[in-house]
Structure formats: C-alpha cells, structure tokens
C-alpha cells in the first residue's frame, strides 16, 4: 500500500466521519433532503468563491460556498412560511434554481475558470493526494486532508459541547424551547455545520457522495438502534467501513472512488434494511405474518367459545363459516393444537381448559384494554407485544 493510497483512505474515512455526525441529526430531524439541497446549491458559491480566490481549497471559498448553503436553507424556510407550497416543494424549487445559476456562471466564464460541474458534483478522490499543502516549503500532507480534518475537529468539538442541547431539540422541540435553548440557534448551527462539511468535502469526494455519506450510514444505524450515542457510533462505523472497503473496490474495478464508496454504502444499507433484527424488512414481514396468524387463532377460539352446537364446531364447517382458505385454517388449527388450546374428537373441535382460560383473558383484554390482563401472554404472542 503506497503512501498516496493510505492518504486517500484517510481522507475518505475523515469525510465519512465528518458527514456521519451531522447526517445522524438530519435523519432524526426528518431533514435528510436538506443535505441534498445544500449539496447542489453550493455550486454558485463555489464558482463565485473560485473567481475571488482561484483556489478550490481556500478557506474563503469554503465560507462563501457554505454561506450559499445557508441562504438556501433560509430561502426554503421563507417559501415554506408563506404557506403557498409544501416544504418539500420549497426545497425542490430552490436548489435547482441555485444549481442552474452555478452552471450558467461556469458556462459563461468557461475560459477563465478551470472548474467543471462534474468535478463539483462527483469529485475525484484519486487526485486529492497530489494537491499538497506546503508550509514554509515543507510538505505537510494533502490540502484536502487538512481541510477535512479541520472541519471534523470543529464538528466534534461542537458535538461534544452541545450534545445535550442537540439531543433535546431533536427529540422534543417544545421541551428544548421551554428549557431556554433556542431551537433556532441549534437549527441554524446544524445547518451551518452541514453546509461547511458539504463544501469541505465536495472537492475530495463530490457533492453527491456527501449526501450519501450523510444519509446512508445514519439511516442504517437508525434501523439497528434507538439510542442516540449508539446510533452516532454505528453511523461513524458504517461510514469508515464503506470508505475503506469502497476504496479497494474502486481499486479493483479501476473506477470512480466516490462511486464505489456509495455503492458499498448502498450494499451496507441493503443488508441492514433486509436483516436488521427487529426493524428489518424480513423481521417486519415475519412479525406481520405471525400477527395475522394469531389474530386468526383468536378469532377461531372466540368462535369456539361462543358456540356449543356440534355442527358449528365441525372442522369442515369452520372453514366454510369463518371463510378461511384451507392452508390458513390448517395453520391455525395446528397452532391451537400445539398450544393445547383445543382438542379434536371425531372432527369436532372443542376448547381445552387452557384454551378456555386464554380466550376469557383475551376477551377481557379486548373489552377493558388493560395491559395487566395479558402480561403473561406477551412471551408467547407477538400480537400482544405491540
């Protein structure tokens, strides 16, 4: 592994961490699309900044571009406040307009600007190690490493200092306001951090990857935990893993590093989405199926309890009466039998003692809706677990 490779992975990992932190809060605050809006609308800021400074890594350019990001947020909120359109429409109106201005600015000044829209949107991590920062003639490492490192340091400092405030205002705006934290300051603070991170990272990894790095790790982490600290840690972990693994995939395919990091992120999310223990799609579908069977079982038991007549309790009659498919009826019957709730004698179904008690309890619960009735049933039944 050469020095340049190591530096690329280091930059990618730092960007991943710097994005994961604000990203977690954006996902929790249901503002994920704002990051997409910011990542596009910083373009005019970058172009103007580039006219002034002629250097993509200059701090002034980063500030100017971050300012455009904040202007976008303010504009979106203003349009939203007029009540003329919904929030998402406001986002969708503002950022393409800003982006268009940026594209036109670049196109009109194509001769003086060595700046490509592709470069802003897609970035090229492979070139990052060649742009070195020289201090008094000595090479101290790639410029983007310093830029991203500084941003990350600021982000972490702010996170530690304002963790409590961020947490409260994210989950309970009203409480935060009544405790005296200004939700507006926290909101704009977060937006500023998101803007600065986007701008600081676009040169290395491109604006789109910034969006992916902000949202995907946080979303995957959110499917695995409901603890904010754990979620942050998981998001950072996913980010770093994808950054490093993605680099090697790109190396192997000889393709864009940003693209392959995003693809790895996508795979990570897909895996979590499918297999997350309690919130993954498979778990959810299993639970839904289980609940459906249990509702059927309950209906069936109630039916038995209500009818003493033999013909109402005949196995075949049940199927016609409650109108179930053969398979479903069989599943329910088997489940009930396995739990010793019914016994079948000459094709006549009747409740056992246990089944009878269970049904009475279930009726009680349905009528009174009190949790105490079903405390001991929770272990056996998904239905009663929530």
């Amino acid at each position, binding site marked *: 592994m050469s020095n340049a490779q190591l530096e690329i992975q280091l930059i990618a990992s730092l960007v991943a961490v710097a994005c994961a932190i604000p990203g977690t809060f954006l*996902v929790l605050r*249901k*503002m*994920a*699309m704002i*990051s*997409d809006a910011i990542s596009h609308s910083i373009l005019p800021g970058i172009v103007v900044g580039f006219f002034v400074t002629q250097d993509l890594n200059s701090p002034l350019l980063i500030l100017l571009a971050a300012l455009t990001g904040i202007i976008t947020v303010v504009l979106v909120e203003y*349009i939203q406040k*007029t009540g*003329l*359109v*919904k929030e*998402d*429409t406001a*986002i*969708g*109106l503002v950022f*393409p*307009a800003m*982006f*268009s*201005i940026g*594209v*036109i600015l670049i*196109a*009109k000044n*194509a001769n003086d600007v060595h700046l490509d*829209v*592709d470069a802003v*949107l*897609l970035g090229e991590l492979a070139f990052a190690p060649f742009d070195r920062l020289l201090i008094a003639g000595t090479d101290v490492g790639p410029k983007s490493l310093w830029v991203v490192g500084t941003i990350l340091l600021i982000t972490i400092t702010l996170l530690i200092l304002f963790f409590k405030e961020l947490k409260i205002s994210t989950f309970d705006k009203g409480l935060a306001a009544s405790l005296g934290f200004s939700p507006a300051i926290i909101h704009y603070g977060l937006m500023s951090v998101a803007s600065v991170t986007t701008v600081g990272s676009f040169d290395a990894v491109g604006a*789109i*990857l910034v*969006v*992916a790095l*902000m*949202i*995907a790790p946080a*979303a995957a982490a*959110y*499917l695995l935990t409901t603890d904010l600290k754990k979620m942050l840690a998981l998001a950072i972990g996913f980010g770093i893993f994808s950054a490093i693994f993605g680099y090697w995939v790109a190396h192997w*395919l*000889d*393709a*864009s590093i*940003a*693209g*392959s*990091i*995003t*693809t790895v*992120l*996508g795979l990570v*999310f897909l895996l979590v*989405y499918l297999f997350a223990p309690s*919130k*993954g*799609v498979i778990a*959810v*579908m299993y639970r839904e199926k289980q609940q459906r069977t249990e509702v059927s079982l309950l209906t069936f038991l109630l039916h038995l309890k209500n009818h003493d007549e033999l013909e109402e309790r005949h196995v075949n009659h049940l199927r016609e009466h409650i109108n179930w498919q053969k398979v479903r009826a069989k599943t329910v019957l088997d489940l009930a039998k396995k739990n010793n709730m019914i016994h079948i004698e000459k094709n006549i179904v009747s409740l056992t003692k246990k089944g009878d008690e269970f049904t009475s309890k279930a009726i009680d619960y349905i009528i009174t809706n009190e949790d105490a009735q079903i405390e001991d049933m929770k272990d056996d039944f998904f239905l009663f677990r929530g």
Partner: protein
Amino acid sequence: MDITEYIKLVFTDYTLRTITLGTAILGAVTGMLGSFAVLRKQSLLGDAISHAALPGIAIAFLITGAKDSNTLLIGALISGLIGTFWIRGIVTKTHLKSDTALGLILSLFFGFGMLLLTFIQKQPNANQAGLDKYLFGQAATLVESDVWLMAIVTGLCLIVMLTFWKEFKILLFDADYTQTLGFNTKFIDILITTFIVLAIVLGLQTVGVVLMSAMLLAPAAAARQWTNSLSVMVFLAAIFGAFSGVFGTAISASQNNLSTGPVIVLVAGVFVMFSFIFSPSRGLLFKQIRFIKNRRDLELHKTLAFMHHIAETHEDISHPHAIKLLNNFQGYTRSTLQKLVDKDYVQLDGNMWSLTKTGFETAANLYTKQSTEDE
C-alpha cells in the same frame, strides 16, 4: 437578432425547431404530471427518480453496447421504477421517514451509476462517449425521432389521464374513500407513478438528472397559485411548462455558452416567482394589500367606537367635540376621519366633529353584529 427574425428561424432551422418543439412538449408533459406529484406531496420524488435512473442507463449500455437512446431510456425507466418502489418499501416497512428514503435512494443509485459510468469509460469501447450528457442534459443533441417519442408519450399520457381522470382525482384528494368505493387504488397509484417516472426519464436527455426535478415541480407550483381546480391547474401547469421550454430555448439560443437546461429551469423559476407574488387569491402582493386594508378597516372601527363612547355620555349624540380628543391610539389619522365623513357617519365643522345619527347607530352595533358594508 430581433424577435421576428428568431421566430422565423424557429420555423426554418432544423436544429432550433427540433429543440424548441422538444423542450415545449417536455415542459407540457412534465407540468401536467408534476401537478399530480406536487399535490400528492411527492415533490422530491422527481429528484430521486431522475438520479435513480442513472445506473439503468449505464447498465442498458453495458448490456447492449449501443448508444441507442431508446434502449437507454428503457434502462432508465426500469431503474427509476425500482428506485421508486424501493422508496415506498422503505417508508412502509421501516420507521425511516420519506425524506430519508428519498435521500438514500437518490444518492445511492446515483453513486452506483457513477461507478458504472467510470467503469464503462475505462472499457476499450469507442462508443461510450456522450453517456454523461444524461448527467446535465444537452438539448442540442435532440433529434426529430426524440421529439416524436416525446410526442407519442405525451399523447399516451393524455389519453390515460382523460380515461382515468375521475380515478386520479379522487385518489389524489381522498385515498381512503377511493378504496371504499371499490377502486383498485394500488393500480391507479402505480399508473400515476409510472407515468411520472416516464416523463422524468424522457427529460433526462434534455435537461439532465439534476435539473429534472425542477421541470416537474416549478410549473405545477406556479399553476397551483392561480386556481383551486385540478383540471385548470393541470392545464395551466402544462402551459407554464411549455412556455418555460420555448422561452428557455430562445434565451439560450440567443447567446453563446448558455446551456439550455439551466436556462429553462430559471425561466420556470421566474414563472413561479411571478405566481407567488401576483396571484390574485394566494399571492404575496395581494395578501399584503388585503392585510393593510383590513388593518385600516380595523382602525376605522376603533375610531368610530371611541367616538361612540364619548357621544354616549351626552344627551345629544350630535354634540360637537374637539378633534384634539382623538389620538393615534384610537387609530385616528386625518384620512380615517375623512373616510368617516365620506361615509356620512361623522360631520366636521372646523376643529370640531360630531357623530351623525347613522354613525351613532352603526357604532352602537359595531361589536354586536357583523356589518358587511364597511368592508
């Protein structure tokens, strides 16, 4: 180049005619379908789908090895649809919210598409150049067959929309009711979504991935300001979209180095801004005017009530009082007083004022019954 000359050129010059027609048709169809997207609160779906179409384009190219725009569009359509349904899956099956789902699909699909595009670029295949026009769009590459394709899709979309108009409309405003009426909501839903995806995919070549969402949103958002009726809104949105296309093409053709896509989006943005400000019922300007007018009325009422308060203490209600008694706190200004005189509620006599009989009665009933004449 003056305007008549330009118009003549539009009809004679092949390239210009094709582009103008193409962008106009595109604007019309996206405006039409965009109305549904906006009203269904799926405004950003367009953004997500247009990004999600990229890997489809790349994969279609990898499979066929040809740059035939129709096969690429089919690839884009399929991958756009996969993206859309995955978004829906995330929202319904997990507790992640729609904004997260949109952002996820958008960035992940786009990143994957970029991976494929860069991978294709490294392949020893001379045919691959120009795939990235789908990123930012190049209206200049439109040819007549593209315009025909757009026209056919637009026609198809019109037919479907007219056939299912009632279903679309009712699903838009009350999905639960639609289901209870026995309509297959899933089918209608998929139908609308498919057409939205189709329109977006068609536009990719012209305005590109990034700006496509604005083409979908802006005309519809502008049209929404002028009407509360769905049919009028769809019609207006189509017109706004078409005009954005025509004007945008004209402006970008009149200058060098001006790409068509961004100009069209900015023109559409101007339409939106104009509608936001000048729409009679919802616009900001008239809202402000109504606000000021209401405040004036309120001040007038306050002055009148104050006068009534004073006059009550006298036996003769028309007993004159000094103007000095009135002050700003009661909403008094010279113009409100003049207005009261005009309405024959008050009589002025030098520095003195007195309530008339009608004025006294109006004032007495001011807060007990709604009076419509004063508005």
